[in-house]
C-alpha cells in the first residue's frame, strides 16, 4: 500500500500540464473569439503587462512556500511606485528613485517578516495590517493626487528595448533567473523548503528559522520596490491606487502554478505560467470588452479550475 502511494505521487514535471493546459486552453479560446488576440503586437503586450505581476509572484511563491502569505504586496507596490515618482521628480534621477522604492519596499518586507517571525502574528493578519499602513502612507505622500511630470529616464524604462527585447521583459527574465538560482542552487533556497516543510529540522541543524523567514519577506518587499519602478514607468506617473488588488493576482498566479500552501512545496516555473494565464485571461476579456469586474471574477474562477484540474489529476 505504501509503495503504491509512492508511485502515484506527482513530481514537479508531471504538474506542468495542470497550469499549462489552462494556459493553452485560454490562448486557444481567446485566439478563436477575441479579434487581434493572436497578433504579435498583442501577445508582446500581454508579456510586457505580465512583468509587474511576475516580479510580485516570484517572491510570493517563496513566501507561500514558508506556509506564509503577503497581502500587503499590492499596497506596498503602490507606495514604492509613488516613492519612485516623487524622488525621481525631485532629483531628476531614475536610479535615486529606484533606490527609494527599493528601500521603502524592503523596509515594509522586513516589518512583515518581523511581525510574522518574531511576534508570531499569523501572516494573513500581519500583512493585512501592513497593507493598511502602506495604503494610508500612499495617500499621505501623494495627498491623494497623481504624481505627474516624472523624468523621461523613468518613463523610458517601460518602452525601451535591449537587443530588441523590451526592458520590462528583460527585468522579469532576470528576476526569474535570480529566483531560480536562489531557490534551487543556494543554501538559503534549501532552507526555504525547510521553513515550510519542517522548521524543526532547521533548528536541529543549528539554523535560525526566524532570521530566514524575515529575509524571505524582506525579499518580497524589495521586489515590490523594483516592480514599483516599472509601475511608475508604465503609468508615466505615480498614482495612489496603482497596485490595488495586485496581491490577489499574485497569490492566484502562485496557486494556479501549482505551489502548495502546505509543507513547503513550491514551483517557480509554474508560477510564471500562472502569471501568464492570469495575463492572457485579463487581456482576452479586455479585447472582448468585458468590464474589469468580470476580470476579477474570472481570475477567481481560474484559480479554482486550475486547482481542480491538479486535484483530479493527482487522484487519477
Amino acid at each position, binding site marked *: *500500500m*505504501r*509503495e503504491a*502511494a*509512492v508511485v502515484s*505521487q506527482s*513530481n514537479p514535471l508531471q504538474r506542468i500540464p495542470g497550469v499549462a493546459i489552462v494556459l493553452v486552453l485560454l490562448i486557444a479560446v481567446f485566439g478563436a473569439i477575441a479579434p487581434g488576440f493572436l497578433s504579435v503586437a498583442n501577445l508582446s503586450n500581454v508579456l510586457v503587462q505580465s512583468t509587474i505581476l511576475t516580479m510580485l509572484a516570484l517572491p510570493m511563491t517563496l513566501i507561500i512556500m514558508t506556509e506564509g502569505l503577503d497581502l500587503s504586496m499590492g499596497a506596498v507596490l503602490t507606495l514604492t511606485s509613488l516613492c519612485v515618482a516623487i524622488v525621481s521628480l525631485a532629483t531628476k534621477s531614475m536610479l535615486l528613485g529606484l533606490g527609494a522604492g527599493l528601500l521603502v519596499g524592503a523596509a515594509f518586507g522586513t516589518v512583515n517578516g518581523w511581525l510574522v517571525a518574531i511576534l508570531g502574528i499569523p501572516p494573513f493578519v500581519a500583512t493585512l495590517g501592513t497593507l493598511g499602513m502602506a495604503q494610508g502612507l500612499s495617500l499621505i505622500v501623494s495627498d491623494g493626487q497623481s504624481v505627474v511630470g516624472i523624468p523621461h529616464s523613468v518613463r523610458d524604462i517601460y518602452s525601451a528595448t535591449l537587443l530588441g527585447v523590451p526592458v520590462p521583459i528583460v527585468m522579469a527574465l532576470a528576476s526569474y533567473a535570480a529566483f531560480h*538560482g536562489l531557490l534551487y*542552487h*543556494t*543554501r*538559503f533556497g*534549501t532552507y526555504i*523548503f*525547510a521553513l515550510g*516543510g*519542517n522548521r*524543526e*529540522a*532547521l533548528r*536541529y*541543524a*543549528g*539554523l535560525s528559522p526566524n532570521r530566514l523567514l524575515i529575509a524571505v519577506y524582506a525579499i518580497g518587499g524589495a521586489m515590490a520596490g523594483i516592480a514599483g519602478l516599472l509601475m511608475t514607468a508604465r503609468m508615466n506617473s505615480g498614482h495612489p491606487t496603482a497596485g490595488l488588488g495586485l496581491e490577489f493576482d499574485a497569490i492566484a498566479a502562485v496557486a494556479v502554478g501549482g505551489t502548495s500552501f502546505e*509543507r*513547503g*512545496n*513550491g514551483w517557480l516555473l509554474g508560477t510564471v505560467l500562472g502569471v501568464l494565464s492570469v495575463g492572457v485571461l485579463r487581456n482576452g476579456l479586455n479585447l472582448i470588452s468585458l468590464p474589469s469586474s468580470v476580470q476579477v471574477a474570472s481570475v477567481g474562477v481560474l484559480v479554482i479550475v486550475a486547482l481542480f484540474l491538479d486535484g483530479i489529476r493527482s487522484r487519477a
Partner: protein
Amino acid sequence: MSSAAIIAETSSPVPLLELRGISKEFPGVKALDDVSFAVFPGEVHMLLGENGAGKSSLMKVLCGAYRTDAGEFHYKGEQVAINSAADAQKLGIAVIFQEFSLVPHLDIAQNIFLGREPKGRIPGTIDRRKILADAARVLGTIGFEIDPATIVDKLGVAQQQMVEIAKAISQNARILVMDEPTAALSDRETELLFALIARLKADGVSIVYISHRMAEVFALGDRITVLRDGRRIDGVRPADVTPDQLVRMMVGRNVDMTYPRNFADKPGEVLLEVKGLSASTGISDINIEVRRGEIVGLCGLVGSGRSEVARAIFGADPVSSGEIIFDGKAISGEPDLAARRGIALIPESRKSEGLALLRSVGDNLVVSALRKLFPSGLFDQRRAQRTSDGLIRQLRIATPGARQTVGLLSGGNQQKVVIGKWLAAGSKLFIFDEPTRGIDIGAKSEIFALIDRLVAEGAAALMISSEQVEICHVCDRAYVMREGRIAGHLARNELTEENIVRLGMHHA
C-alpha cells in the same frame, strides 16, 4: 546493580557513555529517579518499560533536550555535560525520532547535509556534485542503495528512516538512539533495518533501542535495561532472562489505585456484536461483543490496531469484510449514521477531533444533537441553553457557565464536555479512546465514576486504554490486541496487568 557490576558483565572495559544517578523532576512527577545506565561501543542496548516508565525522558536527556536535576555523564571515562542538542551532537549522540526531522520536498542529499551543505564556487551556492557524492558515500556506508537526488516526500516510511540514520551517521554519530524504529515498518523492512543495525554494530556504533516487541528485544539486544515509574529496575542480558521475567519487571506490583465502579453481576442484552471484522487499516478478523451495563476494555500496545477497531465500528474507516450488529440491526457505512443510531466515539485527541476549542461549552454540548433537538432545522437558543445547562449539572462540569470557551477548561472537564455532547445525542454505546490521557488523577476517578453511571443506566462502554491499571480496575472484561488481531480475551477474574502485557507482547 552498581555501575561496577555493569562493567564487570561486559567484555569491553570502558563504557562509551555512562549515566550515573540521573534524576529529572517535573511538577508532581518524578520522570527519572536516580537512573544509571551505560552504553558500550558496538552494542545494542534495549530500553524496556511500560508507557510512562521514563523511556522518553531518558531519551530526551540523552539528546540534550532536558536538563537533568541530578546525576553525571561520563564519556569514555571522562565526565562531560549534556546541556544542549549541540553538546549531545558533539559527543556523537543522535536520536532517530518516530516523527522524522526531514524536509519533505528536499532531496535525500539536501536532507542529510541540511545546514552543512558543501559550499559552491559562488558565495551562498551549494556544490551540487559534491553534496550528491558525499550523500552517496554516506548512503553506501549504511548499505542503502538509492539515488541521493530523490525527493524525500516520495520515499516510504522505512526509506525515510534510512535517510534519518544516514543523516546521523554523516554527523559522526557513535550512539544512535532509536525510538520504536520498527513501529511503522513491514516485516521485510524490519529485516533490512536489523541488517543495518548489525552493520552499524560491526562499525562500533552503539545503539540504544526502545522497543515493545519481545521478539526484537531477544533478537537484537546485547543488554536490556528495564525502567518502571522513572526508576531503573534492572539491567540484564537476554540469555539470563525469560520474557515472563521481563514482563514482571516492567509491571511490578506497586498498585494502589482504586476507582469507583459498581460491577454489574448480570450484564444486559448484547448491544454491539462485531463478527469477523477486517479493514484495510490493518485489522483483521475482529470479534467483539459488548453488553448493556458493561465496560469492556480494548488493550494492547500503541499501534496494535485498537483505535482502528474503534474507527471501523464507528464507520470512520471503510470495512473490507465482517459484520457490525448494533442494537439488533446490522450497520455499515458512515459516522453520521453510526452517531444517529447511538454510537459515540470519544477520540484520543479530543482537542483536534472531539471539540471545537474556540466555541463555548454550550455550543459543543449541543453540536451532535442538533438534529434531535431541533427537528425543524431552526436553532432555538432557549432549548439549547436548557439542554446544555442540564448536562453541565448532570456531568458536574466545572465551568462558569455554558458560554465559557471550551479551550479554557481543564482536561478532565473538556473530556466531560465530549461525553456530554454524545449524551445529548442519545448515544447508547460509548467508545472511549484513551479517555484519561492528559487528565490529572483526581479528574480521572470522576471520569470513571461518570462512565460507571452511564453504563449503570443501561448504556455500554468500549474503552481503549494504554493504562493497564485503569483497565484492570474499571473494566468488566477486556480484549487484548496484537498486530491487528484479537490476541485474547480476559474475564474479570483474569484481568491483571501481567496477563495484558503477556498477551500483548508475546511472539511479536
